């Protein structure tokens, strides 16, 4: 217990002894992590937006003209039983015609000259969430296309592909920026801890000579790095939240993107806690790097 108290006290003493350096390290780490956070926030919001957009993706399964009512019902049963299908709506030939007339009233005369209704009956299918990736949609469409009574399967492939590519690019940028700036954060904290280590060189030597284990010597510095990382991360979340709210207000004030602010979201509490944990981990890594470089492992 006394040992634990000593370790915490030493950590606090380290922080206090290097107040300016500590503050600079926290603020620099916070701004560095904020840059990562911006991309992460963008990624999270785009993923959410992509999710809503993909929910809206409807696949049209057109039924062949010559198919009987029974065969149509059979096809409906088969599709309903497919685990990839979340929901489906049957649109009869008459309903298709009525919809056409509603949507394009000025063009409805085009169909009048044809006599018989040329529009096919169809099933409007929404796939289950786990089957909404571009590859899964394509595989499903190809499978259904071969079913008896199916004339054609239609969906907007280009739109799905473009959306998936955009998300992939943002993901790659977020990972790239995250790795580079996280390394920067580790370096900032490593340098701060190196200053502390240099200032306490004699103390470390004394501890070593009186029989302190390597863990005992290292813990205060690892704790200090972790605290710096966690505080930097927490501050970066504060900066991000502030920026996020200002941005939302700006959008909500009117203009072309008005209304979009209601669709935007900040990180949920669990993610915030996880990000503080990540900051703590980066700080720990920074301290560890410094301890290794300082040759603290020497006997």
């Amino acid at each position, binding site marked *: *217990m*006394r*040992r634990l108290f*000593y370790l915490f006290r030493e950590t606090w*003493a380290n922080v206090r002894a290097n107040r300016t350096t500590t503050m600079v390290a926290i603020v620099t780490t916070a701004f560095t992590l904020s840059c990562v956070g911006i991309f992460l926030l963008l990624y999270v919001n785009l993923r959410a937006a992509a999710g809503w957009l993909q929910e809206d993706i409807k696949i049209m399964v057109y039924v062949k003209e010559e198919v009987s009512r029974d065969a149509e019902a059979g096809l409906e049963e088969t599709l309903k039983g497919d685990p990839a299908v979340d929901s489906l709506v049957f649109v009869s030939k008459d309903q298709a015609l009525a919809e056409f007339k509603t949507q394009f009233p000025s063009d409805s005369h085009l169909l009048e000259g044809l006599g018989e209704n040329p529009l096919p009956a169809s099933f409007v299918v929404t796939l289950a969430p786990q089957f909404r990736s571009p590859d899964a949609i394509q595989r499903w469409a190809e499978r259904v296309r071969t079913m008896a009574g199916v004339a054609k399967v239609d969906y907007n492939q280009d739109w799905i592909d473009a959306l998936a590519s955009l998300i992939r690019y943002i993901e790659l940028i977020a990972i790239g920026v995250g790795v580079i700036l996280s390394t920067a954060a580790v370096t900032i904290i490593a340098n701060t801890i190196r200053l502390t280590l240099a200032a306490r060189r*004699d*103390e470390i*030597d*004394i*501890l*070593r*000579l*009186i*029989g*302190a*284990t*390597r863990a*005992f010597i290292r813990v205060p510095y690892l704790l200090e790095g972790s605290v710096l990382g966690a505080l930097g991360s927490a501050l970066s979340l504060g900066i991000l939240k502030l920026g996020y709210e200002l941005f939302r207000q700006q959008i909500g004030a009117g203009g072309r993107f008005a209304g979009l602010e209601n669709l935007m979201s900040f990180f949920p509490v669990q993610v915030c806690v996880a990000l503080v944990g990540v900051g703590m981990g980066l700080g720990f890594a920074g301290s560890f790097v410094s301890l290794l470089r300082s040759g603290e*492992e020497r*006997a």
Partner: protein
Amino acid sequence: MIQLFHVSKYYDRRAALAGVTLEIDKGEFVLLMGPSGAGKSTLLRMLIGAEQPDEGQILVQGRNVTKLKPREIPYLRRKIGTVFQDFRLLPRKSVFDNVALPLIVQGASAGDIRRKVTEALRAVGIEHKKEQLPPVLSAGEQQRVCIARAIVNGPVILLADEPTGNLDPNLTAEIIELFKLINARGTTVLVATHDPHVMAMVNRRVVTLIHGVMAPEQHAGV
């Protein structure tokens, strides 16, 4: 208690110690004499595993120090108290906290720490200064604090490297008396010094090193 067999240590091909063989029994008080650069500090550092010999073997309490793994060395050091010429006290910690450090490192309870630190400070006659910071103490007082820190966990061996190097003759005599008292309680004491006055004060076994080589043994005062 301490055995060295043909121990040699080289720095840039120059021998700091050359084939030293030495045996110190439990409870002995030995003076390690020799001019600066004779290899005294190197020998003491080897006993606590801070240096490794290039040749030979070192046994402390029957354990071969040269074969210890790095993680075992702290446990060896906990059995050996060390006193330094430059005291090596932590300037921002009180006398009490400095002396308590070896006990904290070992995970002693708060009650044990209070009791043992008080005993150690009383033994070196500096209990009344326990709240003060080392920089405000005299050189003699700082050395007493250093000795208290070395004996606080009841080590089986006490090593002192030029413990009187920064002290005047009166303080030197006081410190040597302290070592004698500690030795009288059963602790094996090995004091490295270049000061011939210390030899006259101690009147015990003397091992002399000259350029890393052991000279024939003599007895102080003889």
